[in-house]
């Protein structure tokens, strides 16, 4: 187990190096620089700025400096927000995104999985049809439509709920629905098909042949197996939820990571763009690692020892 974890940690670092390198070189391959704008700056100013941010150094040196920054958690200064570092932006934005993501994840797990289970056990009954219809809508309708509709109905028309910011519990309802919608629907469908498949397995018949009550057959014998693919999906999904959806943050005017990410794209704020991308990648990689460890506990066939 210890050996496995060390091996995984090493491969995580290698993955991160790859992600950071690709991001770095892609940024440098894109034509145009951060200080280009409609209003031409005087040559001398650009010169000074380039110097200040080491943009005149040879590429390999910039690269090494950047990688050093990544591994010392110093993601550099923002090009566009004078006096702020990328770290500052992540520290400011991530807590909002994370809180939102946490509740979205909670909603997905607490509603999506039970809905999928009920749907499977009541297959072709009204409960199943209801879940299937809702899930199809959830998968098909994009989050910005859900968000915009929500604001239109509950904020503008009915005036029940606030439409921007994240100050009270009421503020969370809209963004959580918009953010979790797709994954909730997806998890419900995934759980449904997985439970249906597991219920056809021979070991379920064996469990019934032992005289176990149906509830034990389902909870003990079916669910533990059926949730394995769901757990696989949850890992990267949690990372995506926690690092913020820029669309949802934009619609509900939440100052999360996603907001900074989007702004950095339009303003060519390269360090912020790279920094948030790498942060997201690191978070994802970690979540996948956590899921793999969790796997070992659920499924004894997966050996973490060697």
């Amino acid at each position: 187990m210890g050996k496995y974890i060390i091996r995984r940690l090493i491969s995580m670092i290698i993955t991160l190096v790859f992600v950071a390198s690709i991001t770095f070189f892609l940024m440098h391959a894109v034509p145009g620089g951060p200080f280009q704008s409609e209003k031409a700056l005087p040559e001398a100013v650009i010169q000074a700025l380039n110097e200040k941010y080491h943009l005149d150094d040879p590429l390999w040196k910039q690269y090494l400096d950047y990688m050093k920054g990544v591994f010392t958690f110093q993601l550099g200064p923002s090009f566009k927000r004078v006096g702020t570092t990328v770290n500052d932006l992540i520290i400011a934005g991530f807590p909002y995104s994370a809180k939102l993501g946490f509740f979205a994840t909670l909603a997905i797990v607490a509603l999506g999985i039970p809905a999928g289970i009920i749907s499977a056990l009541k297959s072709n009954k009204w409960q199943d049809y209801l879940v299937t219809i809702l899930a199809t809508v959830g998968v098909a309708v994009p989050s910005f439509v859900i968000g915009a509709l929500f604001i239109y109905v509950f904020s503008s028309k009915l005036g029940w709920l606030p439409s921007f910011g994240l100050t009270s519990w009421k503020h969370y309802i809209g963004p959580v629905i918009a953010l979790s919608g797709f994954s909730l629907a997806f998890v419900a469908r995934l759980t449904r098909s997985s439970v249906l498949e597991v219920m056809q397995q021979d070991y379920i018949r064996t469990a019934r042949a032992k005289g176990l009550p149906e509830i034990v057959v389902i909870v003990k014998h079916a669910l533990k197996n059926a949730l394995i693919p769901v757990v696989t999906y949850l890992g990267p999904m949690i990372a995506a939820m926690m690092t913020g959806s820029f669309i949802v943050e934009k619609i509900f005017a939440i100052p999360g990571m996603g907001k900074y990410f989007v702004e950095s794209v339009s303003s060519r704020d390269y360090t912020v763009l790279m920094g948030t991308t790498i942060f997201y990648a690191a978070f994802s990689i970690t979540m996948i690692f956590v899921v793999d460890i969790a796997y070992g506990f659920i499924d004894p066939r997966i050996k973490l020892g060697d």
Partner: protein
Amino acid sequence: MTEKILEVKNMKTSFYTHVGEVQAVRGVSFHLDKGEALGIVGESGSGKSVTSMSVMRLLQYPGTIKEGEVFFKGEDLVKKSKAEMMSVRGNQIAMIFQDPMTSLNPVYTIGNQIMEAVIRHQKVSKAEARERAIDMLKLVGIPSPETRVDNYPHEFSGGMRQRAMIAIALSCQPDLLIADEPTTALDVTIQAQILELLKDLKKKVNTSIILITHDLGVVADVCSRIIVMYGGLIMEEGRAEDIFYEPLHPYTMGLLKSIPRLDLGHKQRLVPIPGSPPDLIKPPKGCPFAARCPYAMKICLEHQPGYYERKPGHKAACWLYHQDAPTWELDTGVRRVKG
């Protein structure tokens, strides 16, 4: 006088699918004496598994027993409630299945899966159940059962898994063990070992056994009486010697010709019965075997034959034994070569 442990009377089981009613079992009657081993033989699709699942009341939607009675120790199982059946299953009637690779739950230990049945049906502590699990593993011939009890199914070979399945089945000392193709998924040497084990256990634990298989060769050694099924009906019933040496039904004769012969090695010619089993959504109105039978007569297509008893306990559903039937030189498939 021997005591009947199981008596099935005119049982009919159908699956109500969207393409129509699949009449998988169309009226079977048989019995099993206490301590007896009965073989149910027939080609794949003849209704053997559905028969056993009906007896266990394990049919899943859309399958139902639409008619008949299943007396087990004098009580009709068909009339029992779900809760009553739960205390019969795994306790008084246990079952093992064809594929040991998929019949055990991969995420629980072997011990857990044996203990579960014991704890469910008997007033024992967890520690006692564990002891029982170890004893059962020893009984079915698993080496070092004290450590093996904590293994997961994937740590067992196919043969060992089937032994573990037998251990689960016998853990509550059932009166009846139904083994549905217990050796079909195993390779030949392991097959022989499992059959040997069943034979051995029958003596040791005094359980009645129903052994279901598509291979007549498998039942020869274990069972004293055999039922031959086809198209959801019983074609012939008799003592093992009767079936092997004096078969009455042309279908049984066909099955005999298709047993692999060890004495001929690779040079043997297996003769499978030409044709395929009847459509059970629209079962033939006469003899179900008529379409494949070399002796089929006009009446065979029109009317289902009744049972003709040649001697006590040996009977066949075939018009050939009607008094007005012409006499044929039958190619019985019987082989007298033994050992």
